[in-house]
């Protein structure tokens, strides 16, 4: 049976544990506090060679009806990032990826990583458009998929798939 998640690279995992002050990282990637996100990302890129920006994906979670959370968790968005370092044949290192996540309560914003990886620019724009996550300091916060005057953000969980819009487009 294949591994369910790609294992985290050991040296980076050890560094991230120290950075975040935790003992163990979940295989889906650690949660990084928003105020240290840029610092964390810059270190990943500059000190650990994670040059390749794979994706950034925001997921909206509703507050109520969350099993196992006793309803205490607020309405929030979880932004998942994934970066990669390409194989280093001289040192015999295979290609490795490192995911990390940020929790953004609805109504608040998270720092943009477009200043760290330029690829985050368009990825964050897509999440801003479709999920409505606000990225502070984004160089170009325009909508990318939906029309500029479109009401709402379609990938939010409270946006019904059959929401009617007039005039039909």
């Amino acid at each position, binding site marked *: 049976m294949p591994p369910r998640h790609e294992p985290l690279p050991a040296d980076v995992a050890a560094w991230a544990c120290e950075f975040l002050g935790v003992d163990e990282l979940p295989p889906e990637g650690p949660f990084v506090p928003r105020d240290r996100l840029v610092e964390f990302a810059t270190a990943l890129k500059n000190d650990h060679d994670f040059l390749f920006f794979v994706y950034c994906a925001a*997921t909206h979670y509703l507050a109520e009806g969350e099993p196992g959370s006793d309803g205490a968790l607020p309405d929030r968005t979880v932004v998942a990032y994934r970066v990669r370092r*390409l194989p280093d044949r001289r040192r015999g290192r295979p290609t490795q990826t490192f995911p990390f996540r940020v929790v953004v309560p609805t109504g608040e914003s998270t720092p943009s990583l477009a200043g760290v990886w330029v690829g985050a620019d368009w990825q964050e724009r897509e999440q801003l458009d479709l999920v409505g996550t606000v990225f502070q300091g984004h160089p170009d916060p325009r909508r990318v998929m939906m029309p500029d005057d479109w009401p709402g953000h379609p990938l939010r969980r409270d946006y019904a798939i059959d929401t009617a819009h007039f005039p039909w487009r």
Partner: protein
Amino acid sequence: MRMPLDLLLPSWPDPHLDLGEYDPEADLVALNMGPQHPSTHGVLRVKLYLDGETVVKAVPYVGYLHRGVEKLCEKLTYVQITPIVDKNDYVSPMMNEWAVNAAFEALLGVEPPPRAQYMRTIFAEIQRIASHLISIGTWGLDMGGAIGGGATVFLYCLRERELILDLFEEVTGCRFHYNTHTVGGMRHDLPAGWDKRAKAVLDRISARTWEYERFLLDNPICRQRAEGIAVVDPTLAMELGVSGPILRASGVDYDMRRDAPYGAYGDIDIQVPVRTEGDALARALVRIAEMRESARIASTLLDGVPEGPIGALKPVKLHGAVKLKDGEEGYAAIESPRGELGTYVVAARERRGAASPYRLKIRSPSYHAISLLPWLCPGHTLSDVVVIIGSIDPIMGEVDR
């Protein structure tokens, strides 16, 4: 491969360039290229600010083909998603199917049987040839019809692609949107004698790849228009998440098939074509070399297709039969003809919705490639923009989703 960033950064044009220093009425002409321009490969619109004939700033606008696939996937079950994502990258549907099903299988902890793995790999390689044929052919068409080496290349390429579509039609019954992958394996087994016919087609195509190469290289007009145009900086490309032939034409030796093997790629040696020029011509030549390599991989694998079942799960008839665990999330990617095509899935938390994903994001290589345009176009002439768009080979169905 690491290059000092400080050296590279100042030479990149600024995609968010402030045009305040220009008097828009006197100096610059704003020109909308697309969304219905025939050379933008679909409904891409690029707003170009021109100083004379030179592009000063290029702003791509996408979304004209946005169909809300990711929202739709939240309402469909895992088994129903395959035919929907077929339409994303409509030039290589097999890749889309594999990419989503690979993610579901990784989260379910299911491994497809070896025969299914081999079939997937063979289909993917044949599909890669078909996709690159379209890419080379339409790029030749962009470069100026019959004179620029264009219509001839296009017709030759489509002739070969037709043979591949016939092969797939024989297996799946469809010429285009196959719906042949499913969670845990394949739906359709190989018909008797298919391997011989497939090998004949592959031999024919790989014997003809030199024709495309010569069409491009022996044509002075094509060389003048493509050589040294739109050189992609490898560090910038990596930061943007650009992968596939664009990255390999810029000297980065990275291919997921070899570096992070999946499917049956672990059983075979793969020669990855790499060029260092990084210009438009190099990207086309990398694609042609990949076609030759794909034909070799597929032919070799066709010799050793193991016998056995083609699905790890019982044939999934009930559309809600595949369920993932609470709140699991994961990512799986494959190397599509345009680069890394991946799927990020978050499984639903409520037991009621366990048969469909809570969130599904398709990481499409074309979307990243389009974001390269603001860096590539400035400094080139308007006619070069046509060559640049063709050489990064965007598929708008995949960009807009």
